[in-house]
């Protein structure tokens, strides 16, 4: 990591930490959501940007963590910390199952298969009313007492986001991460070089699910509520969009994408009911004009300027 980027990162961090001092409670809540969904988008990026496998099932993994956290806290009366750990474990388990089934497919089929698996999870959350509350979802007071205020929770999430981002960053830069990049670029080559492609993808999926689970647990604490919408396809789609808007393969683009989409939604909804049209148009425009996302396009511009 160069000296300049370390300073850059610290500046960003300082600004992020200072935000609650100038923003209203509502805006702090928005910022917290941006951090949480940034983590989700990054987890999707690990597979999509670095291993070339875009998943439409991460919403389900994210949401399962949320369900377990709220259930453990509200129904079983466990402490927030224990509930959090259980949530992340559950998400990782789901990722293991998804990964085992999906790892042999690629491209569009991988997309569709993860979509189908996500739908199965959604169906279970919707119909297994005794445990998941069905349509009504699960409510609870999940946060530990010292994190109840908007600001305190934001700072806690910020710390978590920093730790988790660092972990993901180290992961994709590790030899394992480089192997994933190799798989993304040319699977056949990696296979002929003797790498166990399926195993690598499986581990990558599990790691990705682990981080999505952390995001999901944080979200459960943020909302004190989960419902089938939290595991629905729309959640997976939004996660993918945030990842792409920020930039696939850039990792930290996840935060940028999440911030952009959440801010846009907030701004647009104040003026019109047609948020869906705006979202759809955003999808289309990004795919046509900026498929590398915000960070990706910026990088391309910078690289071009350097020449």
């Amino acid at each position: 990591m160069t000296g300049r980027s370390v300073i850059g990162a610290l500046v960003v961090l300082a600004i992020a930490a200072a935000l609650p001092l100038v923003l209203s409670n509502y805006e702090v809540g928005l910022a917290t959501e941006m951090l949480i969904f940034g983590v989700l988008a990054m987890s999707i990026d690990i597979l999509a940007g670095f291993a070339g496998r875009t998943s439409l099932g991460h919403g389900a993994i994210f949401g399962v963590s949320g369900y377990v956290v709220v259930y453990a806290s509200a129904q079983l009366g466990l402490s927030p910390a224990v509930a959090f750990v259980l949530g992340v474990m559950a998400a990782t388990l789901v990722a293991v199952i998804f990964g085992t089934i999906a790892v042999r497919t690629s491209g569009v089929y991988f997309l569709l298969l993860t979509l189908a698996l996500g739908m199965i999870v959604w169906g279970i959350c919707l119909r297994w009313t005794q445990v998941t509350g069905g349509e009504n979802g699960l409510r609870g007071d999940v946060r530990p007492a010292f994190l109840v205020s908007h600001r305190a929770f934001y700072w806690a999430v910020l710390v978590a986001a920093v730790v988790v981002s660092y972990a993901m960053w180290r992961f994709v830069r590790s030899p394992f991460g480089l192997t994933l990049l190799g798989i993304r670029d040319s699977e056949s080559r990696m296979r002929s070089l003797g790498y166990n492609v399926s195993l690598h993808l499986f581990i990558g999926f599990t790691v990705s699910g682990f981080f999505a689970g952390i995001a999901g647990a944080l979200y459960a604490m943020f909302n004190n509520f989960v419902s089938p919408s939290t595991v629905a396809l729309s959640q997976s789609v939004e996660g993918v969009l945030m990842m792409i808007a920020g930039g696939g393969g850039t990792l930290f683009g996840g935060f940028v994408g999440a911030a952009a989409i959440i801010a846009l939604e907030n701004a647009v909804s104040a003026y019109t009911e047609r948020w869906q049209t705006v979202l759809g148009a955003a999808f289309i425009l990004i795919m046509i004009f900026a498929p590398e996302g915000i960070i990706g396009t910026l990088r391309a511009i910078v690289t071009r300027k350097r020449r």
Partner: protein
Amino acid sequence: MDRRHFLKNSAAAFAATSVGAAPWKGAFAQSGPIKIGLLAPLTGVVASGGKEMVEGVQFYLDQAKGEIAGRKVELVIEDDASNPDTALQKARRLVEQGNCHMLIGDLLANTGLAVANYVKGTGTPYFIPIIAADDLTQRQRIRNVIRVAGYSASAFTHPFGDWARKQGYKKIATISQDYTFGHEQCGGLAQVFTEGGGEIVQQFWHPLNTADFSPYLGQLADLKVDAIFAMETGADATRFIQQYASFGLKGKIPLLGAMNATDQSVIRTMGDECEGIIAAAHFAEGSDNPVTQKFTHDYEAKYGKIPSLYGFSMYSGIMWVAQAVEKLGGKVEDRDLLIDTVLKTELTGSPLGKTVKLDSYGNPIYDVQIRKVVERADGKYWNVPIATYPNVSQFWTYNPETYMKQPPYSRSFQGIKKT
């Protein structure tokens, strides 16, 4: 809270206290408008109902010239997208960013429960004319959540079960959407019907948004029942009624419906398939009560359609709140006082043509009409009362304490009396 809001709120508090002493002097209006946050599903599965909710509120405010107790009303409308996560997000926005004095609305029970859970923490008054989840005014009562002009799901099916027995029906089957609202409506009917000696032969539960009812209709046709009770809302209701007729069951087995199934929002796009279906409700748009007739007529003149339950309930709900606020001279900032006043206010002048009051649990007591879908002179269909049960509370004829000891209605508990 930070400085900006502190200053704004102290200014409002100052203004409020200085006028509070003379509430009848409407000319000394409070500083700033009364901000009401209206949550309704404008997109998603129940979008048509949501739109009518907004119309109902706007219809009242138009008639009141945009003011309550001489103070201007600012209505902030947010779409809950028929989805609890979105509802929660919008509620948060209305309360924390919009600084609304109160929230009103939501349609689907799961959205209402999500918002109720949130306002439990903030203390914001939340009025739910449409949300029918029984427990919000029973076992899980939240003080600042009040069901003005609304109803709890089982409140109307209790007397309906009684009426069904009185028709001589001995065996009934029920088919319902598989969620709390459906469980509660069916449970209410099943409990009273079986306690009256009737038998519930079989109960069918299907997921919301079932496009194809043919699997169920086949089974229903084979049962030897005297009537079928269908608890359906929205698009499911439309499809069920049409498919019921197309499979030849109409006219063969009498169809009883939840009031949502024969609501205008469903039947106004239908033909004679809906004729003759009987439901139980507090509101019947075809009633010959003069106040009801005027409301229906005026609403139809303004919006080009006969008012549905959604329009009516929101209209009456905001009317109820307005009457309470008028008693307070427009002072909505004191939440506890507002809530207490609403609980004590009796609704007069509503389209029901009769005064309505809340029971001690925050749920209204109504005259329940048994109503039938008939054709109007101009070829449209509407609901006309054929019998009335006066002063029905959410607890029917049961003692509230005893009633609340039994579990809430669910798929596994339908109140069925074992013989």
